[in-house]
């Protein structure tokens, strides 16, 4: 039973890991990077 639970948990998790990451995150990282470079890089 315990092993079955572990397998199912892994599947619940891996199902999402396997999904495409929404574009909003690429956008967000690009914005953060741009903001940093505008304000003179690493704060």
């Amino acid at each position, binding site marked *: 039973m315990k092993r079955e639970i572990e397998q199912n948990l892994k599947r*619940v998790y891996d199902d999402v890991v396997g999904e495409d990451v929404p574009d909003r995150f690429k956008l967000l990282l690009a914005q953060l990077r741009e903001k940093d470079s505008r304000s003179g890089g690493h704060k």
Partner: protein
Amino acid sequence: MTDQEIVHPDPRDELTNYLPSLRAFAISLTRNVAAADDLVQDTIVKAWTNIDKFTVGTNLQGWLFTILRNTFYSDRRKRKREVADPDGAHAASLYVRPEHDGRLAFNDFRAAFDRLSPEHREVLILVGASGFSVEEAAAMMNVAPGTVKSRASRARKRLCDFMGMKDGEDVLGNIEGATLAVMGRSGTQAA
């Protein structure tokens, strides 16, 4: 062979690599895609602006997961203070993946998993699915390793109890209602 020869990449450049697992962890906690993506967004912004607090060479994923779960619990405390969760709001926010693979046992499992408390889902995902050790999970959750083990075993027991209720009153009924509720919503979240 000196330290200088080891070039550590900027950890901020690695954030992209952890987005899939951050989303998986966030969905495990919130069971709601829109809320999970907002949570991941907050985590990324916090990680980015506090990157100087990250010790290069240590576990970046663990650091990010810690920020995410701390943000989740602190948001949850804030929300609880603001409004009592109205009836049905929790059911309506359940994360239901459209899936047509007909694997009923797994759907039952997921329905049972959805009914666990976030604390129980968290411990099971951290030590069961995302591959962290009990010690690493304990550090993230800021509890003793023994607490992680006992919480995980209680969570597993709850899960079995819920699955034992397979033919019970409304496990699947709730999920279907939740699907409709989710579909009827815009899926956006207030800021």
